[in-house]
């Protein structure tokens, strides 16, 4: 049956594209995915031969901002993705059918493509009270997730809800909202963010399709392609930080000149995401560029790491300076010492930065696990207490 399904090349041909245009399209896809041109042959092959891969997109405890973000993608545009690239066989946000017919579309997609479909999950899964805090078609979200995970070839956790529980898992996590990797024993590609950037979402799907393998992940399960750099390290306002020039109050003269927002609580120094490079909504801007600090929405437990307007006390990443508050004077001294000294300091700093980034990633993961364990312990204690009453 699969042989009858047109490949992307066949679809493009039917739409009147020439072979030359098709190859150009593949080249753009290669460039968009940040690959070497030697990968072109592989891409052409992938697009030429395959029917559209079946995709099941589940919705649990969510606000649907991930779906909304997804449809904002400018490259590729979403209609090309859902009509020409993928076969989006189930998504409550867009599909025509409701009720029984919707569930049947999902079940058919899973049954007919056992072991071959991509599972995209938006939202966390509440495990409290046997799962009655999120039910679809009379089933709990946990039941639905486990059934769907069974035959999935790849599983993507869209956004912070599915990746780390996000807002409903914030203290005191009333419904025991749980990220999906804790409930299924398969690898999960985490794409955190509230929401994730549109083009990051489409690029990750494209990556899986083109290369038939999941992108390389960091120790937390996030694709390195988009989550290996701190917002702070790639921020266009970074030179102001290095020079010790900070916004001290909203809409002050410094704000009107776009100085660093660190003192206004910016969490960019602790946040791994592509915002300051890939940017938002067709590479237009990102929170810091529009004057507000990063709230760290792609980091596990970020809701409990606030308040948002309290600046970070100190953070690793600067070998020479102990805290960012002293960076201004240090940087000024370096400048006075001349370009050579500054360059040498930069090299040392960069080397230390890399080492410390690794250490920090490990530390932040440990911290998150610890916090979660403590929360779980507390919850168990409360439940025990409740039973005694």
């Amino acid at each position, binding site marked *: 049956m699969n042989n009858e*399904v047109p490949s992307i090349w066949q679809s493009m041909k039917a739409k*009147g594209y020439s072979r030359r245009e098709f190859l150009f399209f593949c080249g753009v896809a290669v460039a968009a995915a940040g690959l070497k041109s030697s990968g072109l042959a592989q891409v052409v092959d992938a697009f030429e031969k395959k029917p559209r891969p*079946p995709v099941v997109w589940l919705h649990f*405890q*969510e*606000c*649907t*901002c*991930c*779906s*909304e973000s997804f*449809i*904002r993608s*400018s490259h590729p*545009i*979403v*209609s090309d993705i*859902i009509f020409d690239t993928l*076969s*989006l066989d189930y998504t*409550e946000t*867009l*599909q*025509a*059918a*409701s*009720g*029984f*017919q919707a*569930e049947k579309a999902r079940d058919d997609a899973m049954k007919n493509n056992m072991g071959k479909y991509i599972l995209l999950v938006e939202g966390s899964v*509440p495990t409290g009270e*046997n799962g009655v*805090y*999120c*039910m*679809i078609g*009379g089933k709990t979200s946990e039941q639905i997730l486990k059934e769907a995970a069974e035959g999935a070839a790849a599983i993507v956790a869209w956004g912070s809800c599915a990746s780390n529980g996000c*807002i409903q898992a914030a203290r*005191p996590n*009333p*419904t025991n909202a749980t990220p999906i990797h804790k409930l299924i024993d398969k690898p999960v590609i985490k794409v955190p963010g*509230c*929401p994730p950037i*549109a083009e990051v979402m489409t690029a990750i799907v494209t990556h899986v399709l083109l290369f038939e393998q999941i992108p390389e992940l960091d120790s937390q399960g996030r694709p390195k392609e988009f989550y290996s750099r701190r917002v702070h390290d790639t921020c266009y306002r970074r030179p102001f930080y290095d020079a010790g020039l900070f916004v001290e109050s*909203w809409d002050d003269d410094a*704000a*009107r000149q776009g100085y660093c927002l660190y003192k206004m609580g910016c969490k960019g120094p602790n946040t791994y995401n592509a*915002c300051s490079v890939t940017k*938002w909504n*067709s590479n*237009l801007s*990102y*929170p810091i560029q*529009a*004057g*507000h600090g990063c709230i760290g*929405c792609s980091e596990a437990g970020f*809701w409990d790491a606030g*308040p*948002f307007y309290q600046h970070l006390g100190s953070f690793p990443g600067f070998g020479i300076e102990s805290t960012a508050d002293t960076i201004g004077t240090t940087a000024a001294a370096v400048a006075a010492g001349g370009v050579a000294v500054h360059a040498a300091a930069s090299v040392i700093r960069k080397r230390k930065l890399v080492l410390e980034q690794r250490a920090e990633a490990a530390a932040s993961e440990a911290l998150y696990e610890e916090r979660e364990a403590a929360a779980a312990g507390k919850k168990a204690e409360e439940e025990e207490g409740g039973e005694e009453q």
Partner: protein
Amino acid sequence: MTRVVVDPITRIEGHLRIEATIEGGKITDAYSSGTMVRGFEKILKGRDPRDAWAFTERACGVCTTVHALASVRAVEDAIGVSVPRNAELVRNIMFCTQYVHDHVVHFYHLHALDWVDVVSALSADPVETSNIAKSISNWPKSSPKYFADIQTRLKTFVESGQLGIFANGYWGHPAYKLPKEVNLLGVAHYLEALEWQKEIVKIHTIFGGKNPHPNYLVGGIPCSFNLEDVNAINTEKLNLVAKLIKDAQTFVEQVYIPDLMAIAGFYKDWAAIGGGLKNYLVYGDLPTKGYGFPDSYKFPRGAILNRDLSKVYDVNGKDENEIKEYISHSWYKYSVGDKTGLHPWKGETEFNFTGPQPPFEQLQVENKYSWLKTPRWKDNPMEVGPLARLLVGYAKGSEEIKEVVDGALKTLDVPVEALFSTLGRTAARGLETRLTARWLKEFYDELILNLKGGDFSTFTREKWEPETWPTECQGVGLSEAPRGALAHWIRIKDRKIENYQLVVPSTWNASPRDAAGKRSAYEESLLETPVANDEQPLEIIRTIHSFDPCLACAVHVYDPEGKHLHQVTVN
């Protein structure tokens, strides 16, 4: 008699289940159930009130920004600060941007497939589609070749055997009435709107850094203006806003409105179906002279009872006798008994799931059957949303609102009573999109005028530091989300959130029955609806979609200890 269960209701935000009984081809009773809960109010306790906008914004990613706006207003009201005019203008611009985006996406991507038969478009004559398109609009993408290409693309898609989001749709259902050429037009514009919608939201990105979920700020807006620096909002960014506004007006006037009118013309029978409740509630929004002056709002505040447009009642969110929430059919319990309604300030909650253990086939609707509470205004069930806004504006004599409403009634050649229906609700959404697209330009022009006059201020500083706040204070933030009346109540103690409450549009519309057994808007609107085929609930989702359901924010947990909240005094 048959019992039909529709779960999940798709093409909405959140998780909604409808159970209906059908007798003699018509719905005789209906039950609406919200099946997901997260617990926002519990999570907000003890946090910095200045952070609340970011938390509550995550109540909904479809109507993103609206909760952030209600939240900053609630906090500003509590701590006693008003924002600079530039900040209010930018908030209004973001508000209108949200309406235009949200309503267009609703019409084309969440609602259109209830009216447009995609499969029928396959056999349309592209030349005839082109003729129709040119007769209703001067939108340039209207050549026969253009529609032929769309049709070829659709054919390739369907012939692939992989129907994706169109799989198992109700294609060929007798309730689809459009000529196949109009169906092809609908498919073409579905795709165009999908590509266009990502543009208009860039206004949020410019002022708020991203969309969905742009940033807000208590006391103003986070961005600054500077006409001498590239590192702030400067002429180039303002030019982009102007272009996006112009494009939005063009799209709304040349695509959305002509399509809406053309499609509505074939479904006039739906002007007599789905009317439901006869009461409408509006908090009002878009201040032209400050949030504290509701009389200056573009969308006026008020309530209408029994469809009597000659009288508009005042609405006071702070009066404890006006708004109450019931839980007789909701999975919660009250210390005062489940039959008493409580004002949100005195709200209390404890989860009390008494439904069937999943997996289950049917809810126990005679008991509790939803995670939504049931709000009432003076004990009346109220419909909220675009129709309510236009009716209250119409009844209050807003010239701008009267103009678009009367114009549409004339075009469709229907009386004003036609508004009280599924079709009326869907039309009202389009008409207020026209208005908000126009208002975008008005607010933008005023912003430019302010900057020209040397007023660059975007933030009021004096109440930023919590040390400047009283030990205890409280406030209310009223707004109009695209889906209807939205309010946040906050109580602050020792600079932390003591209590936070949200009563949102879909709670008004989608809630279960109240203690007196009175139905809310969804349930009432389904009564008498004809259903041609029990297996294909097209008519049910048509009416439900006319409300634009948005369930994630409709479900909350109130004060877990059941403490009484104190009344707050606001202006």
